[in-house]
């Protein structure tokens, strides 16, 4: 009972910063919660013992367990919260649909939270008369058209004016910024800047 698992929970989470989100660590989480429960029940017993015996030598251990319990709790919530922040980031960068790859790393409650968060944003945007979209225009506009390079074979992409372009790997296009912004965020196109 040393708080090592709680530390581990956060450490492995923090180390995986190169991926969008790491696998949900159910095992460590369960262990940490278990540790909290044990600390609590042992303190409970010691408290009862103290009421009978008035033995003050019980105090240091009670104090230790209480601190451990608080720390574990804090680590647990920090872990869960930090993951939600990553999900939020994914929502803003990749849109309302989680791809299968990311889904595998999440626990069911997180998927629910993600969908709920998406709904909150939509509700907020729909509160404006014409459903003002705050998820586009993420960068200050530079020009209406931008030069983009296609990073994969995406296929046909139809523009608002009815024209269509074939997005093939390594092909370069001059497209309306607003129409291809989401493809850039998804990593299908790359904005070429000189």
């Amino acid at each position: 009972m040393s708080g090592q698992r709680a530390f581990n929970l956060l450490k492995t989470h923090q180390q995986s910063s190169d991926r969008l989100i790491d696998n949900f660590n159910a095992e460590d989480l369960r262990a940490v919660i278990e540790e909290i429960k044990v600390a609590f029940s042992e303190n409970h017993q010691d408290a009862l013992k103290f009421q009978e015996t008035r033995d003050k030598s019980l105090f240091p251990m009670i104090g230790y367990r209480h601190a451990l319990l608080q720390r574990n709790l804090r680590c647990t919530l920090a872990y869960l919260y930090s993951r939600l922040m990553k999900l939020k980031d994914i929502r803003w960068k990749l849109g309302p649909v989680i791809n299968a790859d990311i889904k595998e790393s999440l626990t069911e409650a997180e998927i629910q939270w993600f969908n709920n968060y998406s709904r909150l944003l939509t509700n907020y945007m729909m509160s404006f008369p014409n459903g003002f979209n705050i998820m586009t225009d993420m960068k200050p506009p530079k020009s209406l058209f931008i030069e983009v390079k296609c990073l994969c074979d995406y296929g046909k992409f139809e523009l608002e004016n009815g024209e269509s372009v074939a997005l093939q790997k390594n092909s370069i296009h001059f497209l309306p910024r607003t129409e291809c912004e989401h493809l850039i965020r998804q990593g299908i196109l790359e904005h070429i800047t000189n």
Partner: protein
Amino acid sequence: MEPDELEFIGEKEMIGIIPNFNFDLIHLISGTIGPFRAGLPMHIPIWLAMHLKRQQKCRIVPPNWMEKDLLEDLKEEEKRTANFVKMPDSNFMIVSKLIFAYAAEEVADIEEIKTIIKDIFDTRQAKLRTAMDGFFVEEKTTQFDGSTQVSFTNLTTFEIHSARPFLPYALDLVARLERVCQQQQSNLNETHNSSSHFSSSYY
């Protein structure tokens, strides 16, 4: 503000152009521009000037202040004065940068002007650093105007943002440490204060 946002803000400044086409008035939300008469100078926002320039529909007229002797004087004044000198444009640095990028060929003595503007910028940055030091020195040296305050007046938006990641942050940190010291002091006075270490308030 991010650098691209500062540039965005700078791009709303008006700038002179000489169009090579004719067109009527355009009633923009930010104000009416035009009419465009081929060969006749006029003023439009920088963001539009850049667009027309890319389409080769206009020449850009550099602002009046982008002139060697005038900038040379400004540079000397900046060196002489302790406070910041008022720049000819509140987005001086950003406008310069955009002109260099989009209309370098329109500026006479471009290389010299680039050097002078850099000198002015460096002089001001040095002053800004001194001013920032002043915030952390216990015993204040009296400024030339008799006040102990550091003056930021006449700094351009761009310059303020060059100090921003560091200066307010450092001051906030100092203030935070001071608060912690005070808290410790008062904790010593009280016999118990068990939960103070668990304060999750965000400074």
